[in-house]
């Protein structure tokens, strides 16, 4: 990788279709067992939603993947996310990052990255920022 510069973009991450199976695995991995994520009867009858919704933290997890794929394992120093909208299951997320600033650091640089995740119709699902130690 070339050294990051302000304005450069990270390789975007397309989540692919977020299936019920992926959400179920994430439920077991995260410990967040709220039925709204896996039980469509519950989502319809108790929450008044058309179907299950993906965990908000799943979108943040995708930001984590995007950043770690770019900076390397163990490179993400801080990661912050603001949750904007619900994402239904069987949708996909496009996660993007833009380098905002670069500061010197031991053995490399710290890149400050702005993040956004949108669904296929362009709706903003989550935004955020991160500091990544790029060596």
């Amino acid at each position, binding site marked *: 990788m070339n050294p990051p510069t302000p304005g450069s973009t990270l390789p975007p991450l397309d989540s692919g279709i977020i299936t019920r199976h*992926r959400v179920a*695995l994430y439920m*077991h991995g995260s*410990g967040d067992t709220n039925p709204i994520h896996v039980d469509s009867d519950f989502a319809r009858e108790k929450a008044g939603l058309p179907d299950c919704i993906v965990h908000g933290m799943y979108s943040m997890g995708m930001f984590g993947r995007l950043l770690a794929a770019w900076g390397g*394992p*163990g490179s993400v120093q*801080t990661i912050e*996310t603001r*949750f904007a909208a619900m994402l239904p299951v069987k949708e996909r997320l496009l996660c993007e990052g833009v380098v905002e600033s670069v500061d010197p650091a031991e053995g490399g640089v710290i890149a400050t990255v702005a993040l956004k995740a949108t669904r296929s119709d362009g709706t903003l699902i989550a935004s955020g920022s991160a500091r990544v130690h790029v060596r």
Partner: protein
Amino acid sequence: MADIHARHDHIGHAWPAFEVLVERTMALNFARGLDETRPVYLERDAAVAAGFRDVLTLPTFPIAMSTERVDLIFAMLELLRLDPARILHASQRFVHHQPICVGDLLTGRKRVVSIADRKGGALTFVDTVIEYRDAAGALVCEDHCSLVHRNP
């Protein structure tokens, strides 16, 4: 409004420390659920070859460590008299000081960082942190959570 002002007395409140073990099954389900395919997050040998103790966790995995103590969330809601049906997760931040790997045994300690009323008291933002430390007491990770409560 009396309740809202009483809430502010709990800024700085801390709960007793707890231990958390980074379990392999949880870490692998977390990575697979996010469709991660890089071996350092899935296979012990690959992680060791990359210089880690065992399978490396993804940057947002600490949420799983915190969710294990969901009782602390309910304890906080009760302490601050917040209605679970009126709570939304506004934002989340993790600060990493050291990698977290499968098999790590960490000590977590949660406290209330700030309580702030916004929009003329219509909303209350509650910020908490869980600090995770290793056996030597060194800081490993900080889990900063911001919840928003729509006041009745």
